[in-house]
């Protein structure tokens, strides 16, 4: 008979407040095969774990069930404790009494009874558990970083500086991301490009970093330590090994009116272009959608201009394959355009801008060389209105979350405007001022007190154009709900930060989770903020949620350390949750009949054909065999197998049937 030990945790009061834990321990103690059952305040604490270890030895336990929090939280903790006591860690299971019971039900008889059922279920399962050995796999010590904004740059440099190779891919022709578009940064007002460009150059020159710009991830296969990334190198139409970056082609390109992405649509660029003067690499690409030659088959002026013959008209996209051991996702965010706001004119008023567009106006490298001028007529606006929370915190707009950076950058914008236009008047409409952060609140106060920015607490109902002015209708909720109407020359919307376009598809390629707003999901909201649910894939920056530069950099360094820690191992230990085909003594060999339905089911090509041969070499039968290096343990093959010959360790048919039978037989 089994000798199972059961340990019920109070989790402080998290479980014991709604579940009668003593009764659970008492009733389970009376179950057949249970040798020992206790309850304790904190099972995961040191004394708690010691109870388990001592019990394993004292009662010679052959199975352990811990009724506590989610196994996603503490399964490794308790399995380690069992292993330390000499019990095979895979003979330890957890019943989820907190997330699936005490936290979701009211205190009462049924809740305690459900807790008992959950523990019983796992006791029955554990009776059928087999000792398993972990699988060791090698680690490819090379990281893939996706996204070349500040998050990707920081993560790449940090990983590269630990001595490991990094492949950095960027969708655009240059690295730099949104940070390269910013004018000055809060709360210090130092120039964004001045602090970023040295980092960009460092990336390009670092011996450990291989940079692919104008490249996107095509697919990622494999698992932690052993990924294969297919990368699409989009055709640049320019040979970078010969191009000197002289820029003559850009000067001569006749297609000059393409809205510049870098200038957020406020400036223009040519069809052959470098996104901005400090770009890395500082060599052009041809935008084939807008190029005259690709559109109509004639022009080729750039080719005639190029002294070194670098233009490659027939170049095609190339797909390369790279082996990597870890991935850092740093794909950043996007901001909603003004066209998202019907009440502010659906984007049809030229002088209603997004915050990012205002950054470009305020930037010395921008379309107006840092002068604040109206896009419509080039005049300097004398009255400007900033609307914080444009879209954010607005469930009706489908964006209930706070975009976090807007309060600060709006204060910065108003401040920059006041510094540049001394007789100007600026008004900020806000819902709340969220200035949590070092020197942030002081920065906002400075905008209000020293730079005399007029802060109005209330929302703006409508913006419309009349006689060349933008009429802003809002409410001042601190003045008894007075309606406010301002005739402004320019309106800046702090539009919501949203997930970058294509993030959902990327998440699906990588099999990482994402939230309803398509931001990538961290493995645990507090304790695993840079990990994803997929081992070996980490997050950095605003692809996880909107965040500012210091936070992004911190997170990127965090992700880099996780990667470095992973690469400090020569081998990784993997959970032995894999499928196996049964083997029996001759003359049966196996119940597998060799139909290979499992092969059709397997998404990892892990099913191999094993030939069973007699001594004389003649073939007796061909059966299936699982390649334990490739199998990821989904178990789809198990459900496909008609003869029940393949089973998955840790979730065997015996185990799951035992669970179901225990649940329903009472």
């Amino acid at each position, binding site marked *: 008979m089994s000798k199972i030990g059961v340990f019920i945790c109070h989790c402080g009061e998290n479980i014991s407040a709604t579940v009668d834990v003593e009764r659970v321990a008492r009733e389970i103690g009376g179950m057949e095969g249970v040798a020992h059952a206790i309850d304790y305040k904190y099972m995961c604490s040191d004394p708690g774990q010691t109870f388990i270890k001592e019990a394993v030895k004292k009662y010679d336990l052959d199975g352990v069930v811990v009724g506590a929090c989610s196994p996603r939280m503490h399964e490794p903790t308790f399995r380690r404790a069992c292993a330390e006591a000499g019990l095979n860690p895979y003979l330890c299971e957890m019943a989820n009494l907190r997330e699936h019971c005490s936290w979701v039900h009211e205190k009462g008889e049924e809740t305690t009874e459900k807790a008992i059922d959950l523990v019983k279920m796992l006791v029955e399962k554990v009776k059928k558990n087999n000792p398993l050995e972990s699988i060791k796999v090698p680690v490819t010590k090379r990281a893939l970083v996706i996204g070349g904004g500040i998050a990707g740059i920081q993560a790449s440099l940090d990983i590269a500086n630990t001595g490991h190779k990094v492949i950095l891919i960027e969708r655009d022709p240059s690295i730099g991301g949104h940070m390269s578009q910013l004018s000055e940064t809060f709360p210090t007002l130092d120039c964004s490009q001045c602090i970023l460009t040295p980092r960009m150059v460092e990336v390009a020159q670092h011996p450990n970093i291989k940079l692919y710009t104008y490249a996107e991830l095509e697919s990622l296969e494999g698992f932690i330590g052993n990924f294969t990334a297919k990368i699409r190198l989009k055709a640049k139409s320019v040979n970078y090994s010969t191009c000197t970056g002289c820029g003559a082609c850009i000067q001569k390109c006749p297609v000059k009116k393409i809205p510049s992405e870098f200038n957020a649509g406020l400036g223009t660029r040519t069809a052959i272009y470098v996104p901005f003067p400090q770009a890395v690499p500082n060599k052009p690409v041809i935008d084939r959608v807008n190029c005259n030659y690709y559109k109509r088959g004639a022009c080729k002026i750039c080719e005639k201009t190029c002294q070194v013959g670098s233009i490659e008209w027939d170049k095609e996209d190339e797909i390369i394959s790279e082996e990597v051991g870890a991935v850092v996702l740093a794909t950043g965010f996007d901001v909603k355009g003004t066209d998202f706001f*019907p*009440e502010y004119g*659906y984007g*049809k008023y030229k002088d209603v801008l997004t915050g990012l567009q205002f950054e470009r106006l305020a930037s010395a490298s921008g379309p107006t060389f840092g002068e604040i001028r109206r896009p419509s007529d080039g005049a300097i606006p004398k009255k400007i209105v900033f609307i914080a929370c444009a879209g954010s915190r607005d469930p009706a707009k489908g964006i209930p979350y706070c975009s976090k950076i807007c309060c600060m950058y709006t204060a910065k914008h108003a401040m920059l405007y006041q510094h540049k236009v001394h007789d100007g008047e600026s008004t900020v409409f806000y819902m709340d001022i969220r200035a949590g952060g070092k020197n942030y609140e002081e920065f906002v106060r400075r905008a209000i007190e020293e730079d005399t920015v007029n802060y109005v607490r209330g929302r703006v109902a*409508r913006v*419309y*154009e*009349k*006689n060349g002015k933008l009429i802003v209708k809002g409410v001042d909720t601190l003045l008894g709900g007075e309606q406010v109407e301002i005739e402004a020359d320019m309106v800046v919307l702090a539009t919501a930060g949203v997930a970058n376009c294509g993030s959902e598809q990327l998440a699906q390629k990588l099999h990482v989770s994402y939230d309803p707003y398509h931001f990538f999901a961290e493995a645990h909201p507090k304790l695993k903020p840079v990990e994803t649910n997929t081992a070996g894939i980490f997050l950095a920056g605003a692809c996880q949620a909107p965040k500012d530069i210091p936070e992004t950099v911190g997170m990127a360094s965090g992700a880099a350390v996780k990667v470095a820690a992973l690469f400090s191992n020569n081998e990784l230990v993997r959970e032995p949750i894999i499928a196996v085909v049964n083997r029996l003594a001759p003359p049966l060999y196996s119940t597998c009949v060799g139909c290979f339905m499992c092969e059709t089911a397997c998404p990892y090509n892990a099913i191999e054909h094993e030939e069973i041969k007699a001594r004389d070499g003649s073939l007796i039968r061909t059966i299936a065999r699982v390649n334990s290096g490739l199998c990821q343990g989904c178990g789809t093959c198990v459900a496909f197998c008609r003869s029940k010959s393949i089973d998955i360790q840790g979730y065997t048919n015996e185990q799951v049937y035992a669970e179901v039978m225990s649940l329903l037989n009472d």
Partner: protein
Amino acid sequence: MKIGFYPGCSLTGSSREYNESVVAIAKVLDIELTEINDWNCCGATAAHSMNEELSMSLPARIMAMAEKQGLTEVVVPCAACYNRLKVTQHDLKDETKRKRVSEILQLPYDGSIEIINVLQMLEKYGAENIKAKVTQPFAHKVACYYGCLLVRPHSILQFDRVEDPQSMDELIKVVGGTTIDWAFKTECCGGGFSVSRTDLVAKLSGNILEDAADRGAEALIVACPMCQSNLDMRRGAINKVIERPSDIPVIYITQAIGLALGIDAKELGLKRHFVTVEL
């Protein structure tokens, strides 16, 4: 084409011309309107600010009577009635409320009737038809004014773009008119303050009228009797509060379409307005 018709009180009183024009164009467009038998007031603003059960029971009775009559779709030209009927229908998805209301009415109510406004009726049954039957294109530059009740609350009505509706503009374009792009499409005209606070009505309606006039509109096009009467009847008071007094007329969408279809101005009730209509 047969369709149920709920005129409501306004259309038989202060806005007879709306009723006349709806009926007149329906005839030309071969839409057969079947008036709901023994209909009652929808409760308007008064009921729902006083008593919730009453505010639901009055519209529910109208719809119950229509159900009894075997109607499946009812057009409600008055924007306030349309709003009350739609909102009630939404509220009565709640089973307890539905039971209570049936009990009050002593009538079965299942909420299956499709309630549409005039713009929806014209879009659904007339757009192509209208185009074919235009005899005198409505070649005017106008401001389409939707008001509050036709598009709000969007979560319940689910009609058009809430901040910048387009359906009336589209209909005007079908009959040969042009519409201005302006900012007061869905601003309040003063609504129910029509009697109690005429000063407020003058101010709010004034803003609307002034912006339309400034942008060169020859007329305001509406689909709500309350908006029409505030903008038309209170013109004297309005003109006192706005900087540039205006004499642009306020007509119903059905009247504009009627004119394009060649219907006589008198038949469309165009002679009943306070501000003279010369289009």
